[in-house]
């Protein structure tokens, strides 16, 4: 497989097996540069396993994949340097201050001291967080935490940022503000790869894939998916895909 340059993620026949269990079953898809790509699926459908492979944490059983221009099998280290990752629960250290968190993550991503110092200041003023600078994370409001967590995940200016349920449990206003941040990132050219259980949020994605039992059963724009499944909403699309038997037979 050749990297065309248009696609920031290219996956072909990717498989991950744990013993006799196939968690990711031969998936193929592409994500375009600058796209907001929604990665949906029921619990246990294989999303997390797929993401862990794409960010270079777990090695696939078989298949091909390029992420951010690097081969997943031979250049996982390079991939990790060129992507950002934000998990919902442990992305910031509660007992470190705002500035300490920024410095810590910048260090992990290998930013040099002088660059990091500059970037940290830039980031704090961009976010308007000057007054929180020396505040412990556990003392700042959730909305700010989310903003900071996303910015920190992108402090090394990655080509792609992976967001794993970034808005879970967040109040409805903060949740929407977070999507504004996602759009900002995408406008600046960062590709956003995001998972969510909020089906209204899937509407905000350029394209959405839906995993069922380890396979990608659908992939398209929200508008096309609704057409394809003759559904009013993405919620209905999801329901039809994730529990097809229930909808058709009402057993």
């Amino acid at each position, binding site marked *: 497989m050749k990297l065309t340059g248009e696609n920031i993620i290219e996956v072909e026949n990717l498989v991950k097996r744990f013993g006799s269990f196939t968690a990711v079953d031969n998936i193929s898809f592409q994500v375009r540069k600058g796209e907001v790509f929604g990665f949906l699926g029921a619990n*246990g459908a294989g999303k997390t396993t797929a993401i862990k492979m794409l960010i270079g944490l777990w090695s696939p059983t078989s298949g091909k994949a390029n992420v951010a221009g690097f081969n997943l099998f031979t250049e996982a280290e390079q991939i990790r340097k060129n992507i950002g990752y934000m998990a919902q629960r442990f992305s910031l250290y509660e007992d470190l201050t705002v500035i300490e968190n920024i410095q810590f993550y910048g260090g992990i991503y290998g930013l040099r001291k002088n660059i990091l110092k500059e970037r940290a200041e830039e980031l704090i003023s961009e976010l308007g967080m000057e007054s929180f600078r020396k505040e412990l994370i556990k003392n700042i409001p959730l909305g700010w935490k989310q903003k900071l967590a996303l910015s920190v995940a992108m402090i090394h200016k990655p080509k792609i940022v992976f967001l794993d349920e970034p808005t879970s449990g967040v109040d409805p206003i903060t949740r929407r503000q977070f999507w504004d941040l996602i759009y900002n990132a995408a406008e600046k050219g960062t590709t956003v790869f995001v998972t969510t259980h909020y089906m209204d949020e899937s509407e905000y994605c350029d394209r959405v894939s839906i995993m069922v039992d380890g396979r990608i059963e659908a992939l398209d724009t929200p508008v096309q998916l609704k057409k394809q499944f003759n559904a009013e909403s993405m919620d209905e699309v999801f329901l039809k895909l994730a529990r097809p038997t229930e909808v058709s037979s009402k057993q």
Partner: protein
Amino acid sequence: MNERVIATNITKSFRSTKALDDVSFSVNEGELFGFIGPDGAGKSTLFRILTTVMNADSGDALVDGFHLKDEIAIRSRVGYMPGKFSLYPDLSVQENLEFFAKVFGTTVQENYSIIKEIYVQLEPFKDRRAGKLSGGMKQKLALCCALIHKPRVLFLDEPTTGVDPVSRREFWEMLGRLKQSGLTILVSTPYMDEASRCDRVALIQKGKILDIDPPGVITKKFPLHVIAVKSDNMQKLRKDILKVEDAESVYGFGEFLHITMKKENSSTEKIESLLKQQGHQHIEVKIIEAGIEDCFMHLMEHNKN
């Protein structure tokens, strides 16, 4: 009406943070009552206090007729499923269930009818260690363990958080059937769309109850018009919509934007012609009924001050 839970002026602080600020409400017998609010709203603290796992700083409650200080009486009358999985991971499914039955001085056989519908789905795995179950199965087991002593009031703390929409739906269908048996159920959730499954809900944010009513009443009370708007260019629409005069708020709602406006000011024609001027096509503008999420955001903004 027979009230199973009556909470009066419950307040609880953790250092400088007020987790619960003068919370009062009551839940009727056989009611499915939802606490809807984001993380940090105080839902878990409230449930811990009502199940006597934690003490309030001030205020009191009657739970099935007993004051909070009657810990032993209350504990035998309530079932509590905490947000975090808290069964014994090294015990099997069956052992967990037997353990919880024994602690409350009963047996699985005696109350099997209550859990039967849920437990049949677990039965094929009854010898598996609880820690090795899938998320959905763990949840079902936790529910069985919370029910096995035949409680009069069931507390479920965020049973559907992080759960996909289809499994969430199944869980609520299960709760609906449990309710049929007359059980009083208090459930908390951050998902606004789940409000419609409850008889009544309390919208809760930063330790304060913003409103309590049946979900249909809360949405009917919404004082503004909600206007749903979409066009062929949603990115541009997000910016152009800010030019609409008299808009109180603009928020994304799936494929639409929702604008709220005072009823006397709202005009779908005006919005439509403005968007046409801005070059939008396939414009859709319609006044719709407010949803719980519209209401929640409205209440949040009006409680800021």
